[in-house]
């Protein structure tokens, strides 16, 4: 097919301002079209490349949609049992204190089966980074209700919407762990628009830099979409996320340098 509107005088190697990082393995990502996982993978790899620590970084992949993260990230990675990534990361960081360690977990992994590991690792003040992708649903297994599913939100196991009387309230695990003394940096970001992507990248950078100072857990929650699980198109799901997820999960820093941020917008939106 003939490609229209090609600017051959601009399309030269010296004019490249953005290209996919080489730290992502050159193979198609296994995620659905429009899924936030791909963006977070890329941001993480770009940050490692900028900091030039790719040979000193060890990642722990979870169970969930991102279980194959080690297939896409060209760094040292280990796969943890379901929910046990913080426990495994604790061991790695204690054995190799000079390495940069991160866990990459979803909401089913971190907030459901791995609640105990998450809370105790945070409370012990281990010195690694947790990246938590929250899409309010179990995406991999077919869109079942997760602890983070919003009240009234439909999923395959709550087809009439989540009823808090019988199914309980959604778990704001990020706020929960921000009150623990071992946690140094907690933030909640999103990746659906360019400005949010840039903010998330800064947060990832800050969290990884903090490991040099051994101050405690850095926890980044990324509110993401799950268009397959929510039964929407990617653009619709991003809009739905802005309208419904963000009032319940307000974006912004929650704890910086070991102190809770008293932000007006956080309390107003909540």
């Amino acid at each position: 097919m003939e490609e229209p509107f090609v600017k051959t005088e601009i399309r030269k190697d010296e004019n490249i301002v953005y290209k996919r990082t080489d730290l992502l393995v050159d193979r198609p990502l296994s995620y659905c079209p429009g899924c936030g996982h791909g963006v977070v993978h890329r941001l993480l790899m770009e940050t490692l490349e900028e900091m030039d620590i790719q040979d000193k970084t060890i990642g722990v992949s979870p169970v969930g949609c991102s279980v194959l993260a080690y297939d896409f990230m060209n760094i040292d990675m280990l796969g943890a049992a379901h929910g046990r990534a913080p426990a495994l990361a604790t061991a790695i960081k204690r054995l190799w204190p000079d390495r940069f360690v991160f866990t990459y977990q979803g909401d089913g992994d971190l907030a459901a089966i791995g609640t105990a590991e998450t809370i105790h690792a945070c409370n012990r003040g281990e010195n690694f980074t947790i990246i938590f992708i929250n899409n309010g649903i179990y995406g991999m297994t077919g869109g079942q209700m997760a602890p983070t599913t919003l009240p009234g939100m439909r999923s395959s196991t709550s087809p009439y919407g989540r009823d808090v009387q019988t199914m309980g309230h959604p778990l704001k695990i990020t706020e929960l762990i921000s009150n623990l003394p071992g946690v140094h940096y907690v933030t909640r970001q999103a990746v659906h628009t360019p400005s949010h992507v840039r903010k998330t990248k800064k947060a990832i950078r800050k969290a990884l830099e903090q490991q040099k100072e051994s101050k405690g857990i850095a926890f980044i929650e990324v509110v993401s979409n799950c268009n397959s699980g929510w039964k929407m198109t990617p653009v619709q799901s991003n809009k739905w996320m802005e309208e419904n997820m963000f009032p319940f999960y307000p974006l912004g820093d929650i704890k910086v340098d070991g102190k809770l941020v008293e932000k007006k917008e956080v309390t107003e939106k909540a």
Partner: protein
Amino acid sequence: MAKIKGDILVNVERCKGCEVCIAACPSSTIAMSKEVNGKGYHFAMKVNNDCTGCMNCAIVCPDGVITVYRGKISE
């Protein structure tokens, strides 16, 4: 006068047609193609010459399929 212009190169076979880049583009330079790629997805393509090389499409692309160029051209 020299003008700063941009250009994008889409990796057609990797594009999954999620249309997130279309919502992010400030100059409406991207649209979905009528054709489909090997996986059956409509892919993103450039439909005008207004690209400024702002990289918005590339940084929101979940699959990282867009390469962005920016340079001076004389008109």
